[in-house]
């Protein structure tokens, strides 16, 4: 009983600043304190989301799909590399600096190159998304694989376990919590990467922002940004649930 009440109170507590802020903004817009050309009234943003809902929905799905694919690629390559690096120290030392490059490269600068290599449309968007999402997967996976308790490692050694058995029986299960945290971060980043890719490659919410900005439709820009934020929020929510479930099952 009390838990249910607490959740309601929490939700209300979250809503209050949002409602107050939005209400104030609406008021400010109508009173002319804020230049509506630069900062639209919330009602205008909601209005365009409704009026152009077909376009927005399609763009939302487009970006979401690209981000999902990008995340998939990042997870596949990141996970594989984490496993390889955990097994071979010299491979790790040789290749890790290149992996680090993906963490530090400003994808906005690289995006035009992606178009040259992958062409316009989804391939570039997915590539951009994957580049940005890749490193947290690798870092989380590697940290997780290394987080196996030393005493358990000793135990495995005591019974003469092979590297493979240690990997499967100990390292991988130990890695799950940190790996999933990496995935959660990667999921959010995959969306950002997709948006950047869309600026140069076309499609999705990125395109909506591009066109809206060109047409000086600040309400539409905000609408698209809002949807992109929602997408990111959903991704984090889903991954957070997975993380919680895994933590409960595995510890």
């Amino acid at each position, binding site marked *: 009983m009390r838990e249910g009440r607490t959740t309601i109170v929490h939700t209300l507590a979250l809503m209050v600043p949002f409602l107050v802020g939005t209400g104030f903004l609406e008021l400010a817009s109508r009173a002319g304190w804020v230049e509506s050309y*630069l900062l639209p009234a919330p009602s205008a943003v909601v209005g365009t989301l409704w009026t152009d809902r077909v376009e927005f929905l399609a763009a939302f799905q487009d970006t979401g799909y690209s981000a999902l694919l990008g995340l998939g690629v990042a997870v596949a390559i990141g996970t594989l590399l984490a496993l390889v690096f955990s097994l071979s120290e010299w491979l790790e030392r040789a290749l890790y600096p290149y992996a680090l490059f993906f963490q530090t490269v400003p994808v906005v600068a690289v995006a035009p190159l992606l178009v040259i290599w992958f062409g316009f449309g989804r391939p570039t968007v997915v590539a951009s998304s994957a580049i940005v999402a890749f490193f947290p997967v690798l870092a989380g996976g590697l940290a997780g694989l290394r987080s196996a308790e030393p005493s358990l490692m000793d135990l495995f050694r005591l019974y003469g376990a092979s590297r493979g058995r240690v990997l499967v029986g100990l390292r991988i299960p130990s890695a799950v919590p940190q790996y999933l945290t990496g995935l959660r971060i990667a999921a959010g980043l995959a969306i950002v990467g997709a948006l950047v890719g869309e600026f140069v490659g076309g499609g999705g919410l990125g395109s909506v922002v*591009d066109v809206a900005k060109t047409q000086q439709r600040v309400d539409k820009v905000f609408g698209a940004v809002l949807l992109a934020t929602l997408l990111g929020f959903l991704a984090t929510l889903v991954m957070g649930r997975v993380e919680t479930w895994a933590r409960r099952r595995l510890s």
Partner: protein
Amino acid sequence: MKLFSLGLFLVTSLGAFAAPSDLRLTLNWKPEPEFGGFYEAERIGAFQAEKLAVKIQPGGAGTPVPQMLAAGQTEFGVLGADEVVTARARGLDLVSLFAVYQSSPHGILVREERGFKTLADVFGHEGQLAIQRGSAMALWLEKKYAPVKVKLVPFTGGIAPLLKDVNYAQQGFVTSESLLAKRQGAAVRTFLVSDSGFDPYLAVVAVRGDYLRKNPELVKAMLRALNKGWVSYLKDPAPANLIMGKLNPTIDAATFAESAKVQIPFIETAATKKSGLGSMTVERWRTLVEQLRAVKIIDKDVSPESCFATLK
């Protein structure tokens, strides 16, 4: 770049406060002969002579000039006439003062190998066309040459893909990108967009209406200086080209010279000989407003007279 401009756009949304000592003139691209008269005005001390301290701010892909004017981040901005009309339709009171390009040098660049003879060919065949999506020009061309067979892709500046890929076409200025492509050895054909009937003033210097009303003498002084700059630049572009060349190393000196020459008929016309450099007519603005309404980029009428001011 677009992400940067989006960020800037959002950050400046809460209005401007500071009144700087320098007047800012923000360009919507990197320094090129398109802006030669401005740098020349600076060089020959035209601003100083009018007791003005002016800072020329170069731009790049996606520089949000209308938004910067709205936020008070710049006093004078350079943008296209279509952008001025759109801004007015969105509630931003912008007034144009000086139109460098009397006719639009916008073109669609394609590779000669395609064998296209008209703009219609470009839109009627498969391939890729990089164009600023949602812009008035793009919407006009898409409407005029419907059904569009070519795949429209985002345009982010530069000519690299054009040089690499035969099936790639892109927007560009006949006074700039076309020459660059030629210099890089590509066989490129340029179709003037104005041939399709869409011919807005470009490289237009504009201010906020309230700024104009508050500082009429200052604005007039600025225009006098700009005029002097352009007259001087048209006579001899070389010194200003040198200055701009240092600011924009992506274009070599020879191309700078050629561009300055090729752009003259776009700047000096029968109209400017009569009414002066940069002058504008209400008929041109009226046509533009009608065209923007036709492609539905604006949904309300904008008074053509309100778009510009002729100051003496």
